[in-house]
């Protein structure tokens, strides 16, 4: 009997030990609940089990290897209180189900004035989801998506829904559906973010008065898709290498009164793609080595292009679907048209003496079949353009009344390097011939 009692007590001890372990693993929510409002929770270098809900203002600070792992059935961290700070944590494993009422995220914010800093997010549907949340700061957040696969199978890096006055700074987003998605969200500032390998790096829907500075979009299907959104400012951003049959640096669709200033469009299928949009102001952009610099559909009217620099695009401007009414100069300042414009500048004031008509015949084949885009990077397309020019089959794509002229100066360094190379080549041949 004594043995039985000892055995029973031992077994009970083991069982309670196991229970206390389970208890220890559940302590993150307890830790949060037990910390007084405006206090700080310091997390250790270990994996905490989510999901957690924060209902009071406090600061949660992670160590170097702190991970919060979600249950895979909901939001990993839900912030319901204002003035929460979340810093230095890796958050992973949100719910991914698409048959539930809500879309889950690694961090879901329902409140205002929160700060998320130095966070890494993996294996989650959305990265950070702001739902009717205003005046929040999202800084140095890194969201790693699955990359590729079915479009609906993954969410967005940062999802901003009915949320205003937020600031998104220096975040990196790779391989999600859309990098940053705005839905009915106004007056947000987005700066110095880096988005790559997504569908649309930036996706605006019904969101007005947002500002967008020094961001970089590379290797996406589309750089920034601005749809049904007005009065945005896009300044000093880079849209590079967005290549694919439907790719673009910036798409403006039913988007009006936006300002696109001093951005760089380099090696995209289309630099700017404008459809059903009016009154956008496009100034000082570098549009370099794209297949199509600007693709303008006739449904788009009254865009103003000024002081933009077109250089080495297969076609600088492509107007499709008929005549459109766009301005190619503003207050007497036109655009730089690169080598395609042979203009005189007799008084050396940096402006051509006559208006410049940019002509092309590519609209003829592109309007008939989308497969024509396949030929834009082939050598034959230049000959095709030349033949149509000789046959007068081309059409005016843009008429710039005040084109800008640049006076090229050949760099001395460039000449010296070339002379050295050619000289070395000759010397090598001579030496080998003698030897």
């Amino acid at each position, binding site marked *: 009997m004594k043995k039985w009692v000892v055995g029973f007590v031992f077994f009970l001890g083991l069982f309670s030990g196991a229970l206390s372990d389970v208890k220890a693993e559940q302590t993150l929510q307890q830790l949060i609940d037990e910390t007084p409002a405006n206090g700080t929770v310091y997390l250790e270098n270990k994996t905490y089990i989510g999901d957690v809900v924060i209902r009071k203002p406090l600061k949660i600070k992670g160590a170097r290897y702190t991970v919060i792992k979600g249950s895979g059935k909901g939001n990993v961290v839900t912030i319901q209180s204002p003035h929460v700070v979340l810093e230095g944590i890796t958050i992973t494993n949100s719910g991914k189900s698409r048959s539930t009422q809500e879309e889950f995220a690694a961090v879901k914010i329902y409140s205002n004035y929160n700060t998320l800093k130095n966070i890494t997010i993996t294996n989650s549907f959305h990265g950070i989801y702001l739902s009717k949340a205003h005046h929040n700061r999202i800084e140095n957040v890194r969201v790693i998506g699955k990359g*590729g696969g079915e*479009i609906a199978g993954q969410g967005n890096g940062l999802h901003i829904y009915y949320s205003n006055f937020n600031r998104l700074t220096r975040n990196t987003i790779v391989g999600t559906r859309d990098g940053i998605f705005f839905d009915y969200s106004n007056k947000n500032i987005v700066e110095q973010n880096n988005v790559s*390998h997504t*569908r649309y790096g930036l996706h605006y829907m019904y969101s007005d008065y947002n500002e967008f500075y020094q961001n970089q979009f*590379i*290797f*996406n*299907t589309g750089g920034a898709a601005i749809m049904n959104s007005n009065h945005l400012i896009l300044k000093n951003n880079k849209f*590079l*290498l*967005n*290549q*694919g*049959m*439907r*790719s673009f640096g910036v798409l403006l669709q039913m988007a009006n009164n936006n300002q696109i200033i001093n951005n760089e469009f380099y*090696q995209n299928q289309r630099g700017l793609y404008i459809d059903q949009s009016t009154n956008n102001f496009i100034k000082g952009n570098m549009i370099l080595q794209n297949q199509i610099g600007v693709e303008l559909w006739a449904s788009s009217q009254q865009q103003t292009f000024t002081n933009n620099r077109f250089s080495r695009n297969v076609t600088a401007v492509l107007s499709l679907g008929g005549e459109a009414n766009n301005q190619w100069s503003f207050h007497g300042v036109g655009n730089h048209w690169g080598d395609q414009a042979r203009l005189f500048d007799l008084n050396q004031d940096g402006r051509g003496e006559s208006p410049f008509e940019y002509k092309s015949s590519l609209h003829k*084949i592109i309007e*008939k*079949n*989308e*497969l*024509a885009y*396949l*030929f834009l*990077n*082939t*050598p*034959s*397309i230049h*000959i*095709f353009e030349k033949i149509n020019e000789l046959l007068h089959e081309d059409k005016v794509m843009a008429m710039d009344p005040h084109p800008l002229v640049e006076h090229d100066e050949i760099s001395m360094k*460039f000449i010296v*390097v*070339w002379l050295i*190379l*050619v000289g070395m*080549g000759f010397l*090598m*041949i001579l030496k*080998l*011939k003698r030897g």
Partner: protein
Amino acid sequence: MNYIWKEWLEISRGKAFWFFLTLIVVTSFSIFLNAKDLPFEQGFEIFLLLLFEMDIYLIPLLCIFFASFSMIQEKELKTLVMMLAKSDSFGRFLWKKSVAIQFITIATFVVWYLILAIPVKFLFQFHPNHFLYFLVTVIILVLIFNQIGLFLGSVCNTKIQLIGANIFVLFFFLYLYDFILLYFLPKVTYENVKLFSVFYFLHPLHTLRFYLETSMNVFSLDYLSRTMEKFFSFPPLALLAVNISVWVILIFFVSVWLYRKGEQG
């Protein structure tokens, strides 16, 4: 191996090879100078694409002229007749010649691009797998246009004939082929787009660009229209295999067959 060495000695004595090498070095170095201001993270891929853009003009031109003239020289100097008289068949001769020319030109390109990769590595974030894809693309490009050059050299009898044939073939691959495709483009529908795709990708320059851009994840095949999805339904590696089969293997046997037919005639 002996034949490769013999070919190397012959080639290195002539001016053509050194002109060939100088042209490659100078043009690729000028691209390097133009690309040096590109961003560190993405500059490497852009540099490789720019280099490929140059190669699609340079390699067909150099390889076709180099290989075809090497072949016609064997005919003009009567060394071909001497070798065939020593019980060598034309097939065996063409095989040895092809191996030697391919080996020397491919080695030249690979060695130079490996040297060029050294300064590039300091300038950009280096991705070895992307560089490997680029080398594979260049090797196949050289392989195809060398073999076409050898074909032209074996079917032409005089240098004048050969120059005409070379110019026509270059014009065909750079322009004419695409003009023919563009002519049929308005007639392409969802039903026949796959057939159009076969002809489009039978052009080695289209296939190699597609292979390079998709393997480096530069060209997105996501979110395509139904027609485009059908058009891009062939895997890039399969398209490469088809191109090698047609433009290297098949053209080798056609060269032998046409030479024998000419002999009999």
